[in-house]
């Protein structure tokens, strides 16, 4: 019998369940405690190409079974010098708890702006990625409940996608889906972007099978892939829908596209 459980309230000799102390409240009354988090649903997606990156997210904001808003963007330009972010070079997507997502976005944006004023050049994706990880980890014990993805072009002009967990673990990847429908979209991406489980026909049996050779996708292919991924997610997940917001980052700048999704 555990004399010292993990639960501080029960430290010392423990009660058996039937002897557990009853709360001093009338029958049926439950203690109401403030929960600082909610899940606002939605999904995001990022794919890096040879010389571009596409960041996308749906625009639905939910709480429980209610749709709070049909247009609440999750993908943001970061670190521009003006309020319309027309000269931004980085894009951040956040999904999870919307209030934390917004706070995170505004902090990162402010930091990137300060960097730009001080150094006279925009922050590189690599530097911004590390800084974002630090911001998230600083709140390790009261985390920003948001799954962030940062996109841009690296020093060589190649597409770069960095994905995060809520406490700041991060890695650079070719593609990543986040949020409510991540588990629906990610396997689709593995298959269609990294050609997982695709083999050269007739190349052998079992371990002798040869993998289909990977090649960088074109921008047109990726845009279609993103739309298909979201159309699939909308069909199978109730928290995804209404609109698809896409940001295409190239060396010419950032293009924003908004397409309709099913609103049911």
């Amino acid at each position, binding site marked *: 019998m555990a004399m010292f459980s993990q639960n501080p309230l029960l430290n010392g000799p423990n009660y058996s369940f039937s002897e557990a102390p009853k709360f001093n409240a009338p029958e049926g009354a439950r203690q109401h405690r403030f929960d600082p*988090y909610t899940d606002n649903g939605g999904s995001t997606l990022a794919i890096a190409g040879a010389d571009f990156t596409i960041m996308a997210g749906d625009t639905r904001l939910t709480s429980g079974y*209610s749709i*709070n*808003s049909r*247009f609440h963007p999750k993908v943001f330009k970061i670190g521009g010098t003006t309020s319309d972010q027309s000269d931004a070079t980085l894009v951040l997507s956040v999904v999870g708890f919307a209030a934390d997502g917004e706070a995170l976005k505004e902090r990162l944006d402010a930091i990137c702006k300060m960097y730009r004023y001080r150094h006279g050049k925009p922050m590189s994706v690599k530097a911004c990625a590390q800084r974002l990880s630090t911001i998230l980890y600083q709140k390790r014990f009261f985390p920003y409940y948001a799954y962030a993805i940062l996109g841009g072009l690296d020093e060589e002009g190649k597409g770069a996608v960095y994905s995060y967990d809520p406490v700041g673990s991060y890695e650079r990847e070719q593609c990543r889906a986040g949020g409510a429908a991540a588990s629906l979209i990610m396997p689709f991406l593995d298959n269609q972007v990294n050609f997982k489980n695709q083999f050269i026909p007739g190349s052998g049996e079992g371990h002798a099978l040869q993998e289909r050779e990977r090649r960088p996708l074109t921008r047109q292919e990726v845009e279609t892939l993103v739309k298909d991924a979201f159309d699939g997610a909308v069909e199978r997940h109730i928290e995804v829908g209404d609109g698809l917001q896409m940001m295409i980052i190239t060396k010419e700048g950032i293009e924003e596209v908004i397409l309709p999704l099913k609103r049911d």
Partner: protein
Amino acid sequence: MDHRPQAWGRPRDDVYGAYDASYLNNSGPRTVTQSPVVTGTSVIAIKYKDGVVMAADNLASYGSLARFTDVKRLRTFLDTTVIGFGGDVSDMQFLDRHLKELATDESYEVEPTLDDEDDEESSSSKPGHLNAANLFKYLQKLMYQRRNSFDPLWNQILVAGLDSDSKPFLASVDLRGTSFTSPSLATGFGAALAQPIMRKYAGTEEDAAKLTREQAVEVVKECMKVLFYRDARSLDRYSIAVVNKDGIELKEDEQLEKQSWAFAERIKGYGTQTV
């Protein structure tokens, strides 16, 4: 006899005995609002082509008790913004005091020189005056800060007015600081009962931009009626506000009109059942 000012107006210790300070409960951890006590129910609002219409009933409930039946839950700010409060009424009153103070400070912030051309501009975009979008951002930051310190203001708030482009503005923020905008918004029960009706008329921003003021008011009144039919914590006396570039028209003692339970006898079973 103790003549120090601290003792003025207090019962004399030599007559009544020392005050039992244990009632003040000044030991132990500091406690904050952990649940709402006196609450207001739904607030609803819809945009129309040159403004926003908002409504909320005048009831403050204490659990299931209809405790206060003349509580104004729509408040105004600087004749440019209407703020509707759902949730805890004491937190609403705290916020209202805070906003009055802010409005006073803001009223002193007048641009020293204004060209005659600038006077043509609507009051919401006057420099030195917070418009609805500015005020909303302020409230969102306040609510988020309070949730971060685990001392939330237990409200869901709708803010209506005009933004910096003089376009209709409507947004919502709740006790966790979650904020969003939409052509129509509703809190509490209204999210389930009124929002579907309002979305029939203003499903998109384009649809909302076609609505006239009369239509918008009509839709809101219809929604208040539906809410009174089905929300047990509601009242047939309500406040309704219209905000546009000319300012705010706030009516705080409206009576629900043309109520009829005639539809009730046609209800059979659950929805699709006909026999």
